[in-house]
């Protein structure tokens, strides 16, 4: 009973590559990992928006969004912000080191439903991590979708995650990328201000569009307000929640927002659903 398919027992994966996205107290480091076990490597499947519990024996586990799209290859990417015990220990790791991974967990973005639509991602800070797989997915299946608009901001240019990648994207024709930082900096070519105002600046049309937002709670709140001002219907808006979780499989209890278990009913939520739950933006 305990041995077979024990959902708490993680797989071992090796870090192929690791680099810092941002520096400072709350640095973000991205890891590209590959499962050690060939069988797992082959059979592993995840969809954009899902996450996984990654950890180290003796330290613990953290729920982290899978920031790579399955279309990119047989590997997983995690972008981890240094916060506490586990993430700190993860930051010490380098290529060649191993981590444990279990999952994938949670629901995913309904990328099939979205076919033929315009996709707008609105991210802030580390919140870009769960949005990256959609961007990659849409890029890989470019024909299936209309315009892709990326709106992303952080406090300073040094805090922008995936900056190189995003700046490259701008040059491709059918993807538009809008970056912002909170306060003026030298040599900054893009917008200065908060993400919700950048959204108004970009002023996307709600027609046949899907808006997906992720970031700090306060940013989400204002982005939602602004999307409504831009006449987006609730059903057109998606967001992801990141409540604290321990088990990842709906047992440990803490991640609920009202009657929703973020780990199972989420982390991706349609705003129409979320609006029913008063606790979700507390």
């Amino acid at each position, binding site marked *: 009973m305990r041995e077979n398919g024990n959902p708490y027992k993680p797989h071992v994966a090796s870090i192929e590559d690791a680099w810092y996205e941002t*520096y400072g107290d709350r*640095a973000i480091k991205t890891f590209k990992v590959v499962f050690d076990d060939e069988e797992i490597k082959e059979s592993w499947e995840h969809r954009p928006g899902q996450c996984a519990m990654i950890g180290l024996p003796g330290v613990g586990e953290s729920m982290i969004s899978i920031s790579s799209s399955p279309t990119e290859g047989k590997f997983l990417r995690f972008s981890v912000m*240094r916060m506490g015990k586990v993430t*700190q220990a993860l*930051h*010490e*790791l*380098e290529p060649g*080191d191993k981590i444990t991974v279990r999952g994938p967990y949670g629901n995913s973005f309904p990328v099939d439903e979205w076919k033929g639509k315009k996709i707008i991602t609105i991210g802030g800070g580390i919140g870009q991590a769960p949005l990256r797989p959609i961007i990659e997915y849409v890029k890989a299946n470019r024909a299936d979708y209309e315009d892709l608009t990326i709106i992303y901001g952080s406090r300073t240019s040094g805090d922008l995650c995936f900056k190189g990648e995003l700046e490259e994207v701008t040059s491709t024709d059918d993807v538009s990328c809008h970056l912002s930082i909170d306060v003026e900096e030298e040599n900054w070519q893009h917008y200065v201000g908060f993400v919700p105002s950048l959204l108004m600046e970009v002023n996307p049309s709600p027609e046949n569009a899907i808006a997906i937002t992720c970031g700090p709670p306060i940013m989400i709140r204002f982005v939602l307000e602004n999307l409504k001002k831009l006449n987006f219907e609730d059903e057109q808006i998606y967001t992801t929640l990141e409540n604290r979780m321990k088990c990842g499989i709906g047992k440990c209890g803490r991640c609920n927002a009202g009657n929703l278990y973020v780990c199972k009913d989420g982390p991706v939520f349609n705003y129409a659903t979320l609006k029913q739950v008063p606790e979700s933006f507390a």
Partner: protein
Amino acid sequence: MNNKPRIGVYVCHCGINIAKTVEIDPVTEYASQLPNVKVARNYSYMCSDPGQLLIREDIEKEGLNRIVVASCSPRMHELTFRKTLAEAGLNPYFLEMANIREQCSWVHEDVEEATAKARKLVASSVAKARLLEPLEEKEVDVEPATLVIGGGIAGIQAALDIANAGFKVYMVEKTPSVGGTMAQLDKTFPTLDCSACILTPKMVDVASHPNIELMTYSQVEEITGYVGNFEVKVRKKARYIDMEKCTGCGICAEECRLKNRIPSEFDVGVGKRSAVYLPFPQAVPAKYTVDPERCLFLTRGKCGESPKCADACPSQAFDFEQADEMVEFKVGAVIVATGFDVFDASRKPEYGYADYDNVLTALEMERLVSASGPTGGKIVLGKGDEAYTPKDIAFIKCVGSRDESVGNEYCSRGCCMYTAKLAHLVHEKIPDANVRIYYMDVRAFGKGFEEFYDRVRREGVRYIRGNPSEIFKRGDKLVIKVEDTLTAKALEDEVDLVVLAVGLEPRKDVREIIDLLRLSQSGDRFFLEAHPKLAPVDTATDGVYLAGCAQGPKDIPDTVAQAKGAASSALILLSSGKVKVQAQIAIVNEATCRSCGYCVEICPYGAIEMVEANRMGHIVSVARVNEALCKGCGACVAGCFSGSIQQKSFKDAQILPQLAVLGVK
């Protein structure tokens, strides 16, 4: 950035010193298996140049970022290896040492046991090394000036030494003149030179030295800051006389309506003064001061038609509107030379000091025998017609010293000799006097003291061993009741004059200074030095030094010697221009601090203060460590229940893993 720990372990043979009892190879092998250890090597002498080179090379080649050296005591070579790390570009605090020589190979014979112990010590060091953090060795600039509090001989000497070395000195003296107790003395033991003759020139020097700013009749109100950077606030009390204009002629005092009506502090009440006064003729500065508590004009707003003094002053120096003046300045060091008070003899009522005029304290006696004293040096008692010269004179020693009943267990270190001195002077002035000294012990420990004591005895002074129990009046005479403990005979000695050799006590106002500078008191209530043997002029507060009797009773030579010590300590600080701040100091996690202030109470160095912090919009008080003051003892850390204050390099998180390893069998 938090790099993954890559530890290098270096096991030293120390020739055969370690290798004889500890099996080096297994220990090295064991170390190489420990978590995060990248390299484990051993070498015959790690501290030698090739040994250190080994470490430096590995740091470069293997990218090591923590080093564990298993060798001799860190007390021996910690600095050596820290340097090695620094030379290789690594923070010197990424070093941990395992002492497998002094505390292992040299104290155990059994190879197996010693090896097992060495393994554990290495494992424990590795466990800690994994968690070491880089530390910064900070330096702070030193303000090239010194504050000297107290203008007695101690303060004067220290001020002159520092000023002569070319640094600015601010001297703050409470009374209107510098000089302190020494100025009150007649002659000084054992050489019997005239106190005024040797002191006055120094007093004048202090006043005229270009590097010294003298503030008499002033007091320090506030000192903030820390070593090298003290901010001082001084209140210069109003003298009601313009210092610039006063020429010190003394006409005002002559005119004062209260002339000779006020007991003179300087003459300890034996003499009298006016309400406007110069404490004593040689006073420095030679400027008059109006006593605000006595002056009729100041206390009642009226002094006859108009104050006679002001009218009389030829230079129109009076200014009754004058207010206290506040001065602020910065200094790098502080010398506390506030001296002592003499024991209040009325606290021993059995000696009748408060009741009988012919019971005097030694200090009063000093004034009485002094040529500049109220009697011009004649020993006469009583007034006017009743005046007489005492013949039978007794001294009682140890009044207020070595006496538990008054709370002074210590010896005042001067009374034996000044009693001998006074006895000698009495003999000199009243050759037929019959002088006896009641004593418990005679302590003549200083240079020339024993010789002086001998001389006085040869002059005919009788030493009687006994501790008088009572003094009472019988007719004109005073009767001393005492048991001669050598002959075990009870005596009743009839005398004309009793002189009480009062001891030296801490100043009544020590608390003020303690609060100003966060100093501590020792058991005797004098200021506590940093170390009784090795740092007798330093205090727990860096940059604050003690000189003279403020630290404990002493005579003039010792006072001067200590003043010079304090001056040199201050000069070392000032001339280097910078102070290194400890690196392994305490640091507060303000987010979890619970405002209890335990650490503030505990810190022996006053290095912690409570400051306000904003916690989600609420103002809370949290502890903050002054990096320049913390010495890194860690006493605060173990006293903090919430674990909010931690000592760098000795954090709970770094020590607990050491325990985990030690338990591994």
